């Protein structure tokens, strides 16, 4: 039996506490392992460390022979399922679309959702679901990669039963056994006795292990076709108009404010270019419009595990800043393709820098309490240099 999940010598600190110290766990293909224990003992830490979401003081996490993270700072990615305690779904994603994105393939989503009594919500936004329904989507997003795969896949589930009704828990338990029958390896944290009974091994914190012989399931792989995932960020931005609401409005407000006191055709060369490029700078200072959406329910953590670059709408930022520059050029009656391209590029560059800074603070306990905007004045420098070069 191949080892699909290998956690070696894990030492993890959270806050000021050492939660795991030299912790080891191997999970073979076709195994369901449940971690149980009282609140705060470290179960979620094991899941998050295995998924590569936490810095490791020591040790390594390997999934399907790929090093996900180790204490030397090495990182990697592979296809596996993940469901955290937070649902990690953005409210503006559609129910069916979320599962297709999780699978990175086309398959019969409607039938799957029907089994979980969500078929009628396939085209609804996740934000309109109840808490329990949202939890079902989060759990299914983790299971779907395994459900469509003939190759054994690892699945990590952190308290998947939380918020689920009894019927859904029954379906989940059966699904776990069916996936195990298909060779997939599943690590679950739970207090629910039905889920515990479905395990091949139950590990109680700090470390006592009990082997069990649960029922054997039947794996029926869902038929699927690989699909090219259309840019999720751009899709969400079009749906929510987040780019317009944040970046666009900022640029228009700056333009409008300047027009209250400035007559563009009376401006000297340097001031004219400053006027034309200022809206793009303001728009760029709002960063990536998708970033705010990713903060909902900790969705960024789920996407971080899947892809090196999270969903973003930078292409739209580039276009939007270009349009703002065209507008300010029209108002100033100064047409220059180089200036318009400069505005678009300036806005994009500014947005990328702001987004990188924003992502850097996501590990903090209270990322919104940090005054990140204090670091953004440096972005005036490229604008000023551009203005002086153009004039």
């Amino acid at each position, binding site marked *: 039996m191949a080892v699909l999940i290998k956690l070696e010598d894990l030492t993890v*600190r*959270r*806050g*000021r506490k050492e939660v795991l110290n030299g912790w080891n766990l191997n999970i073979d293909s076709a195994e369901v392992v449940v971690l149980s224990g009282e609140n705060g003992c470290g179960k979620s830490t094991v899941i998050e460390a295995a998924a590569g979401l936490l*810095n490791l*003081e020591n040790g390594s996490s390997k999934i399907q022979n790929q090093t996900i993270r180790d204490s030397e700072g090495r990182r990697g990615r592979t296809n596996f399922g993940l469901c955290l305690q937070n649902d990690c779904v953005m409210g503006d994603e559609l129910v069916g679309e979320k599962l297709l994105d999780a699978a990175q393939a086309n398959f019969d989503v409607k039938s799957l959702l029907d089994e979980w009594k969500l078929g009628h919500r396939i085209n609804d936004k996740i934000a309109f679901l109840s808490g329990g329904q949202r939890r079902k989507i989060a759990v299914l997003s983790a299971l779907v990669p395994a459900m469509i795969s003939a190759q054994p896949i690892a699945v990590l589930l952190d308290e998947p039963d939380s918020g689920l009704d009894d019927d859904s828990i029954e379906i989940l338990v059966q699904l776990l056994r069916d996936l195990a029958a298909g060779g997939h390896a599943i690590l679950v944290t739970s207090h629910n006795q039905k889920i515990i009974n479905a395990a091949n091994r139950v590990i109680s914190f700090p470390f006592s292990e009990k082997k069990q012989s649960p029922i054997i399931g039947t794996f029926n792989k869902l038929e699927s076709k690989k699909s090219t995932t259309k840019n999720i960020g751009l899709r969400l931005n079009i749906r929510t108009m987040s780019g317009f609401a944040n970046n666009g409005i900022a640029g228009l407000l700056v333009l409008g404010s300047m027009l209250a006191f400035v007559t563009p055709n009376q401006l000297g060369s340097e001031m004219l270019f400053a006027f034309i490029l200022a809206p793009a700078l303001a728009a760029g200072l709002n960063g990536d419009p998708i970033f705010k959406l990713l903060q909902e329910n900790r969705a960024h953590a789920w996407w971080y595990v899947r892809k090196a670059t999270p969903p973003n709408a930078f292409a739209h930022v580039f276009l939007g800043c270009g349009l703002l520059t065209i507008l300010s050029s029209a108002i100033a009656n100064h047409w220059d393709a180089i200036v318009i391209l400069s505005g678009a590029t300036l806005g994009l560059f500014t947005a990328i820098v702001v987004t990188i800074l924003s992502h*850097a*603070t996501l*590990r*903090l*306990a*209270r990322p919104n*309490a*940090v*005054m*990140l905007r*204090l*670091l953004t*004045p*440096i972005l*005036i*420098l490229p*604008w*000023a*240099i551009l203005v*002086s070069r153009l004039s």
Partner: protein
Amino acid sequence: MKRLGEVLTLAGLTGAGLTLWLGFTWAPSVTIEAFESPEAQKIFYWHVPSAWAAMLSFSLLFIGSTMWFFKRNQWAWRLHVASSEAGLATGLMCVVSGTIWGAAEWGIPWDWTDIRLNTFAMLTLLSLFLVLGRRSQPDGIETRDTFSTFGMYGFLLVPLTYFATRIWQIRHPGPVVGTSEGSLNSDMGLVLLIGAISFTILIIGHIISGMRLAHLELRFEDLTSKYEELI
């Protein structure tokens, strides 16, 4: 040892006071041909040493951040804490005095196209971000790792700031000390040297006191947890 930081701070403050006195009473004045505002030039005797002290603080910030990030050294974290506060204080002194001098000498307090002005201001804002940010978060590995990452990357601005006026002379004047193009009068240079030494001693004293303060804060938190377990 407990009072070393305070002794050095006091010595530094005394030296800074001496620098001020010498600058006003002994150092030669400059002419209207050389400076637009000859009287305001005397800001120089604290502006330059505070900039030097700030660069020293940012360098120590880098050392503390790096050692914490890679070695998990507790002493290094206290150095990060103390030097971010020192960098903020001296950076603000330099930026504020510089803008006032700029208003007097150039007619404008700031120039957004000057590399040195903006990178130095950026370093000061980075220190402000680190000081305020740390106070908004519970202490822990995530907080320390995040802020020391900023401390490490921010250091890229230090050599840029230092060399900026050697490569581009946009608004801020170029170096006058230690170069063949320098034109500093020797008496002024002496006062400036006293200022630089004083501010160095002052900043080291402050950083030692700051590290002791950080140690006391951590000790207080540990004792509070211990007391709560007891009750």
